[in-house]
């Protein structure tokens, strides 16, 4: 894993300085945490940190693909809440039934987005906003606005609460596979190339004869599926389907993608840097918790939102340099 990341760094260092910056920031923050707090580098903190952030990494990955095409998916939080309820209802049948079906329900929402965007020509922002409302309403209807307890007798909760071979949480294993898989799709398949090309310039991509619609349908379905997976993690990790969860997740995911250096105009970005962005945002809160524990400062939970916003602002300031450079190139043409 480390070797692959190093390889990616070298590849992107010239193309996207922000991807490098996010890795450096991540390393600095980890070093800070390890040096300052006793238990920060301990197995318990690392494993619970990663386990909790697995769902955010999952939706960030889907969001990354969507943003690479120049789109946006605001529905991921609501869809995750919806699928967590579906997963909770299906939990008596075991994880092998509940997980695929819950993910499929997420994909269905993604396909709905795709149809609105690709065939009805509704802007992604509006289409996914409507799906966000619809999925939220849907999850409240099917759950009766109650949290739905999962079946503790089946193997469903093992996913979110137990470790593979007693070492790594299952959620991390699954997300790890997802990261590698999507990385390969983006970098090494024609589908991934088309995704990047669509973001670079949709009209040109159509003229090149690339399958633009297929790529767009794929990214929204993927994003829905990733949100579905996050919903399964949510239900499994917290022992309940939670129709009211997921508020603001789309923003966390967008922030992770942006922090990772993916341009919001599409066409440029990387999967590992998105993961680093998600970890970085999560780590800020992890460190805040430790700092609170030390007693020097006392940050309420509300400060987290303020800091998250300030963080996004800092990243945007950094990124404007890259984007303005790009727009100058466009103007020069």
């Amino acid at each position, binding site marked *: 894993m480390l070797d692959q990341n190093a390889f990616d760094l070298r590849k992107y260092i010239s193309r996207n300085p922000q991807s490098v910056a996010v890795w450096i920031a991540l390393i600095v923050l980890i070093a800070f945490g390890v040096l300052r707090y006793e238990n920060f580098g301990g197995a318990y903190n690392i494993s619970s940190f990663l386990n909790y952030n697995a769902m955010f990494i999952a939706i960030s990955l889907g969001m990354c693909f969507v943003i690479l095409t120049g789109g946006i998916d605001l529905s991921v939080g609501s869809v995750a809440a919806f699928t967590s309820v579906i997963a909770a209802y299906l939990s008596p049948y075991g994880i092998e039934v509940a997980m695929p079906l819950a993910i499929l329900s997420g994909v269905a929402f993604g396909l709905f987005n795709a149809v609105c965007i690709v065939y009805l020509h509704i802007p992604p922002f509006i289409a996914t906003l409507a799906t966000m409302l619809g999925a*939220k309403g*849907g999850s409240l209807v099917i759950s009766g606005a109650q949290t739905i307890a999962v079946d503790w007798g089946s193997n469903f909760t093992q996913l979110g609460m137990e470790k593979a071979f007693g070492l790594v949480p299952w959620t991390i294993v699954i997300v790890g596979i997802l990261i590698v898989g999507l990385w390969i799709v983006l970098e090494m398949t024609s589908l991934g190339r088309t995704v990047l090309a669509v973001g670079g310039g949709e009209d040109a991509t159509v003229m090149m004869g690339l399958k633009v619609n297929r790529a767009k349908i794929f990214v929204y379905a993927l994003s829905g599926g990733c949100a579905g997976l996050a919903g399964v993690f949510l239900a499994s990790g917290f022992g309940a389907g939670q129709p009211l969860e997921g508020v603001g997740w789309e923003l966390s995911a967008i922030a992770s993608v942006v922090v990772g250096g993916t341009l919001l105009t599409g066409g440029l970005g990387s999967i590992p840097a998105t993961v680093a962005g998600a970890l970085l945002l999560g780590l800020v809160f992890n460190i805040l918790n430790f700092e609170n524990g030390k007693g020097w400062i006392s940050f309420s939970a509300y400060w987290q939102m303020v800091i998250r916003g300030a963080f996004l602002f800092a990243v945007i300031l950094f990124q404007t340099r890259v984007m303005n450079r790009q727009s100058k190139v466009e103007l020069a043409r």
Partner: protein
Amino acid sequence: MTSLTTNEPIRADLVGRLKNHGGLIALGVILVFNILVTPNFLHTQTLAVNISQVATIAIVAMGMTLVIATGGIDLSVGAVMALSGALAPLIFMSDFGVAYPVLGLIAALFFPLVAALICGLFNGVIVAVLKVQPIIATLILFISGRGIAQVLTNGNLQTFSNPEFSYLGTGKILGFPFQGWLAVAIACILFWVVNRTVFGRYLLAIGGNERAAKLSGGPVQRVKIGAYVICSMLSGLAGLIVVAINSASDAARNGNLMELDAIAAAVVGGALLQGGKAPIFGAILGAVIIQLVKYTLLANGVEDEVALIAKALIILAAVYIQQARKE
């Protein structure tokens, strides 16, 4: 659109609005349905309740319409509402506000709007000067604005009894809620601004074709910033009204999901997401439709959750019709 559009903007706007009467038809259908089905619909109290609730949506939606006219979007309106709504009680319940009630009341109306203005400047500068996409630029305050409000109030619900301040949300003129009149007055002013001022001309020009507006020497940056400032200040005002209605300020709930209502109202009212159109009265029409759909469903025993799905379908339908007409 006929050839009228190019020559006589105001008349064409009227003609255009009459031509695009999808919204009015929808309103008519909802009204007829309610008169036939909903008990006590034709009752002054029902009207007053609906007006007092629709006013805040309409006020924010008008600001959103200006931002959308520039081709932008403002996600931070709900957070700005929470922020200004949290500030007002903090000011008139402070030692100063208690000692000097009149000055305190003035300050409680003034400083929240200043805070909102600063938020608007922040959004506008990031969008216009740093050239960040509006969705992302306003995302910053969307996330942290409500956080600041909650930090200020420690997350507590602030309840108060201040009849003068509450007039903003509960007062009545000629039997109709004060904020309804306020919304109408703001609409008239904004309609004039959009159609009769240089600012308004450039606002529409930027949305129509930003580069052309810039190359023709228009103050693109200032006009854009202006749109975000107006939108934020109207949101701040709406935040004050909500607090006044409830005689309580809850930073966690004030303005929650307002950005969706405001965008929906603006779009249903005929605002083009690509920019270039600022139908101010359309925004009010959109707000009324959204409010009436919500009311109709609730009054007829349909669950709140289903109302969300209905709202989603309205937004999709409105934008789809818009797109189809354009093509």
